[in-house]
C-alpha cells in the first residue's frame, strides 16, 4: 500500500515500532519462564536471567496431585463446556439465521445482556443455589455457568458465519425431500464447521482463563481448576514462598494456550471481530 513512497527513514521507524511491540508482548512471558527455571536461591536474585537453572520446579508440580488433578479438571471441564456450548449455540444460531419465528430480537438482546453481565453479581446467589442442589465443588457446578457465558459468544459468531453459507444448498436438500432438521445436520452443519471450530476455540479459552467462578464454586481439588489451584501451592518449607512452583505452573497452563492461539490466530481474529464490528 504505502510501499511506493517508502523512505529508509520510514523503514527504520516501522522497524523500531515492530521491535517495541514484540518486546513488550514477550518480556512478561519470558520473565515467567525465567522464574520457573530459577532455583529457590536464585529466586531471591532479581536478575532477569536465572543465575542458577533447575528443572526442579517443573518436576515438583508435575508430581503433585495439587497441580495434576486441577490440570485434569481444567481440561475436562473446559472441553465438556465447549462441546455443550457450541452445540446449543449452533442450534440457536441456525434458528436465528434461517427460521422465521417471533422473539428473535429478544434472544439477541438476552445474549447481549449476558455478554456484558457482571459475573460477580452471580457469585452469591449461585453459591447458595449450588449448595442447595449439591452442585457446589463438582464439575457440573462449573460447567453450567461456563456454558451459559459461552452461549452469547457462540450465538453471535455462529450467526455471522451462518449468514455466509450458500443457503441454496439447503433449499435443494429440502426439495429432494429432506426435513429442515436433516437439512441442518446433513448439509449445513458440515459447511458451518469452520465457524464452529472458531467458536469452540474462543469458548474453551474463556473457560480455561476463568478464575472467579473457579475459586468461588470449588473448595477442594476434586473440581478446582488450574488457575484457581496455584494459590494453594506450598514451598519447600512453610517459610518459603512457592514462587518457582507457581511460575512453573503458570508456564504450564500458559504456553500450550499461547501456541494454540498462535496456531489458530486467523480463526481467532476472525471470530473476535466477526460479530463485533460492522455495527
Amino acid at each position, binding site marked *: 500500500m504505502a510501499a511506493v513512497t517508502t523512505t529508509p527513514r520510514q523503514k527504520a521507524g516501522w522497524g523500531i515500532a*515492530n521491535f517495541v511491540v*514484540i518486546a513488550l508482548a514477550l518480556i512478561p512471558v519470558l520473565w515467567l519462564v525465567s522464574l520457573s527455571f530459577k532455583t529457590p536461591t536464585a529466586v531471591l536474585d532479581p536478575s532477569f536471567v536465572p543465575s542458577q537453572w533447575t528443572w526442579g520446579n517443573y518436576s515438583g508440580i508435575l508430581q503433585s496431585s495439587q497441580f495434576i488433578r486441577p490440570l485434569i479438571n481444567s481440561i475436562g471441564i473446559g472441553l465438556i463446556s465447549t462441546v455443550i456450548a457450541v452445540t446449543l449455540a449452533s442450534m440457536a444460531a441456525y434458528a436465528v439465521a434461517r427460521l422465521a419465528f417471533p422473539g428473535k*430480537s429478544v434472544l439477541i438482546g438476552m445474549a447481549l445482556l449476558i455478554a456484558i453481565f457482571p459475573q460477580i453479581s452471580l457469585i452469591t446467589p449461585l453459591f447458595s443455589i449450588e449448595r442447595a442442589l449439591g452442585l457446589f465443588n463438582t464439575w457440573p457446578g462449573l460447567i453450567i455457568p461456563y456454558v451459559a457465558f459461552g452461549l452469547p459468544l457462540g450465538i453471535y459468531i455462529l450467526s455471522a458465519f451462518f449468514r455466509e453459507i450458500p443457503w441454496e444448498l439447503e433449499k435443494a436438500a429440502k426439495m429432494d425431500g429432506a426435513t429442515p432438521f436433516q437439512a441442518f445436520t446433513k448439509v449445513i452443519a458440515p459447511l458451518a464447521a469452520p465457524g464452529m471450530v472458531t467458536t469452540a476455540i474462543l469458548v474453551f479459552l474463556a473457560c480455561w482463563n476463568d478464575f472467579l467462578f473457579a475459586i468461588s464454586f470449588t473448595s477442594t481439588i476434586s473440581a478446582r481448576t488450574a488457575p484457581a489451584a496455584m494459590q494453594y501451592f506450598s514451598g519447600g518449607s512453610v517459610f518459603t514462598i512457592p514462587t518457582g512452583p507457581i511460575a512453573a505452573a*503458570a508456564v504450564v497452563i500458559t504456553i500450550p494456550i499461547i501456541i494454540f492461539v498462535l496456531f489458530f490466530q486467523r480463526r481467532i481474529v476472525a471470530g473476535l471481530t466477526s460479530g463485533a464490528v460492522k455495527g
Partner: protein
Amino acid sequence: MTVNAPVAAGSEATSEQTPGHRKQLSEGAKAERRLGFMLIAPAVIVMVAVTAYPIIYAIWLSLEKYNLELPQEKKFIGLANYGAVLSSQYWWTALVVTVIITVFSVAITLVLGMLLAQLLHRTIFFRGVVRTAALIPYGIVTVAAAYGWQYAWTPGTGYLSAAFNNSAPLTSQVQAIAVIILAEIWKTTPFMALLLLAGLSLVPEDLQKAAKVDGATTWQRFTQITLPLMKPAILVALLFRTLDSFRIFDNIYILTAGANNTGSVSILGYDNLFNALNLGIGSAISVLIFICVAIIAIIFIRGFGTAAPGTDIGKR
C-alpha cells in the same frame, strides 16, 4: 454484533411460496416456528437459569438478614442491607477504585490499541510476526500473567522492582493501583487493537489516497476520515472493554488481594461472601454492581444511537 441480515433471509424464504398453496404454507410456517423455538429453547433455558433466575434470587436474598454463620437469625429486613452497604466506607472506596482503574485502563488501552491497530494495518515488514506477537498477551491466562507482574514488582525477587530502586509498589495504594492498571493494559490492548483493526480495514484506501493528494496531513486524514468511519467499531470496542474492566477481579486478587484499599467492587463482593459469609449483604452488593453495569451499558447504547448492537434487527 451484527446478527441481523439472517432475519430478512428467513422471512424471504417464507414469503417466496406461491399463493396457491396457502393452507400448506401456513402449516409449513407453523412447523418452522415450532422448530425455531425448539432450537433456541436449550440455549435460552441455560442462559435464564444461570443469570436471570439468580439475579432475581439475589434481589430476594438482599432483602433478608442472612448470615451463613447465624442461619437461625435469618429474617426479612427490607432495604436495610442496601442502607448498610451504601453508608459503608468500603463500598464507596471500592467503587472509586474500580472507576479509576476502568477509566485509566480503558482510555490508555484505546490509545495504545489504536496505535497498535495502525501498526498492524500498515507496517511494511514482519507483519505476520508482529500480529503473532501481539496476540500473546491475549492468549495468556490472566492469573498466570498477574503472578508474573506480582513477582516482577516484589523487592528482592523482581527485575522491575530492582530497576526502580527496590521499590515495593504493591504495598502502597496509589502505586499498587498503577501496577494493576499496567497489568490490565498489557493484557487487553491486543483485544482492543483487533477490534479496531477490523474497523480500520473498512476505511477505503482510495479515500485516504485522495485526501493525501489534496494535501491533507496524516493527522487530518486520521481525525477527519479514519475516526468518523471507525466510530461504530470504536464504540463497540469501548463498550466491551469498559464493562469488562469494571468487572476486574483476577488481576487485583493476585496482585494485592484488595489490601491497602486497592479492591474493586468485585473483590468486595467476593470478600463479603467468603470471609464474612453474609449472603444478605453480599447479594445487596451483587445487585448494586448489576445496577452500575446496567447504567454504564445504557449510557453507551444511548451514545451508539442507531449503531447499537442488535437495534437494527429486522431493518435489513
